[in-house]
């Protein structure tokens, strides 16, 4: 069991959702995220005063998956988000010890 976490450009969220459904992912969790990577912040100007905004707004998408499905999901996310420019985001995969469906108490693959 793996947890795939992807930090993506906010405007690519719909495309990611569609791509994940196409590879039969059964659920995902989305949250707002601010951060910085190689893409630096930007400058905003209010009444002539310049402010540097260091943190860039992103969406964080989390998907639980069977080990065998991980590479297909990663490919789907990349296909939906890759523009080739700095700021496209990052994906990482972590091992998950246990997953439980709250409604039924089912565990493991059944809980996905």
């Amino acid at each position, binding site marked *: 069991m793996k947890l795939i976490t992807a930090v993506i450009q906010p405007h690519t969220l719909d495309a990611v959702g569609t791509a994940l459904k196409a590879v039969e992912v059964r659920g995902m969790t989305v949250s707002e995220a601010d951060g910085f990577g190689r893409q630096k912040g930007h400058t*905003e*100007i*209010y*009444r*002539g*005063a*310049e*402010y540097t*905004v260091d943190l860039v707004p992103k969406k964080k998408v989390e998907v639980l998956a069977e080990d065998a499905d991980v590479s297909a999901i990663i490919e789907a996310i990349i296909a939906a988000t890759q523009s080739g420019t700095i700021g496209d985001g990052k994906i990482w995969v972590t091992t998950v010890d246990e997953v439980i469906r709250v409604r039924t108490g089912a565990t493991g693959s059944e809980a996905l």
Partner: protein
Amino acid sequence: MEPTLDTGVTAWMLVSASLVLLMTPGLAFFYGGMTRSTSVLNMMMMVLAAMGVVGTIYVLWGWSMSYGASIGGIVGNPFDQFGLGGSFDPITFVDDAETLYVPTIVDVGFQVTFAMITVALIAGAIADRAKFGTWLIFVALWVTLSYFPMAHMVWGGGALSDEGWFAGIAAPVDFAGGTVVHINAGVAGLVLALVVGVRTGFGTEVFRPHNLPFVMLGAALLWFGWFGFNAGSAYGANQIAGLAWVNTTTATAAAILGWMIVDKVRHGKPTGLGVASAIVAGLVAITPAAGALSPLGSIILGVVVGALCALAVGLKHKLGFDDSLDVVGVHLVGGLVGTIAIGFLATDGGLFHGGGFRLLLVQVLIALVAVVFSGIVTTVIALLLKVTLGWRVTEENEASGIDLAEHAETAYEGISR
């Protein structure tokens, strides 16, 4: 001949009063959007509660101190028409033949709205950090000791009117309140910003406006309300009111262009906050001049004030005073530009219209008197409150949010600034 009620003018004055009243809640949005999300309620409350204080005071002694029996041309006697009693004359004539009149109570309604907006304007200079109670006491003292005397001097037949100190040189022009409202409030804002001190983190931290659409909504309401302010100040439904209406629009339109040009040249992009600010700057500058300029003259004034205010709002960062929402950069600068520009651009007596220097001199003099008078009065009140009640909330409350600390409310769920 028995005087007749002028129903047309009376109706227009009631509409104008209502329009001007709308400006102050509009100002609450204009200012509220510019603060942090943790102090928007406090800012809007400073504005709305000022309406509460001034609206109550005005009929008690405000009208009398503005238009009652003069004490040396400086202020009206507060007891002369206290509570709209005493020598209060229920009839105001609107024509020289004294055949047409409006009820004076209509003028009371019109004037109270001016007093409200003027003192509310000052709130922007001390956003995010002032004790609410101290602010309310300040409102009561300042409107009494600075606004009512200025209104008396300029509009109540006092020292700065066409019967006053400078009448021998030329009749001073302040159509709708360049001195009484904008220079007065602008100087008070500067003094308060200095006395109250900078926000924690000023100069190092980011104070980003939390809701620019609020600011634009506020600017729109101000512009709409300003037609009552300026065209209503014609005290007639006539040619002058029409001229003031048109000038109020053209000067403001030109100010938008002036500010956008400065934005574009300095930063490469015209900004939304810039345009919202330009609207107010243009409205401020045309206020004293609305009845005295041609529409072409108002365009010149608008472009100049839009560009100048765009440059002036940066001064606080260079000079280190935290006039948080630019009361000085917009209202003091705009008020001075508008009041003095009359000396150049007035179709009757302006330098550019062959009128010589006399009107210009008088306009500079009334602006100077307004600056000095408001400066001294505000300094005394502000320092008195500083050593008695104190101006500042604690640094912790400033950091965690003044809305919660002073009002036990937050504007938004789960906010962080």
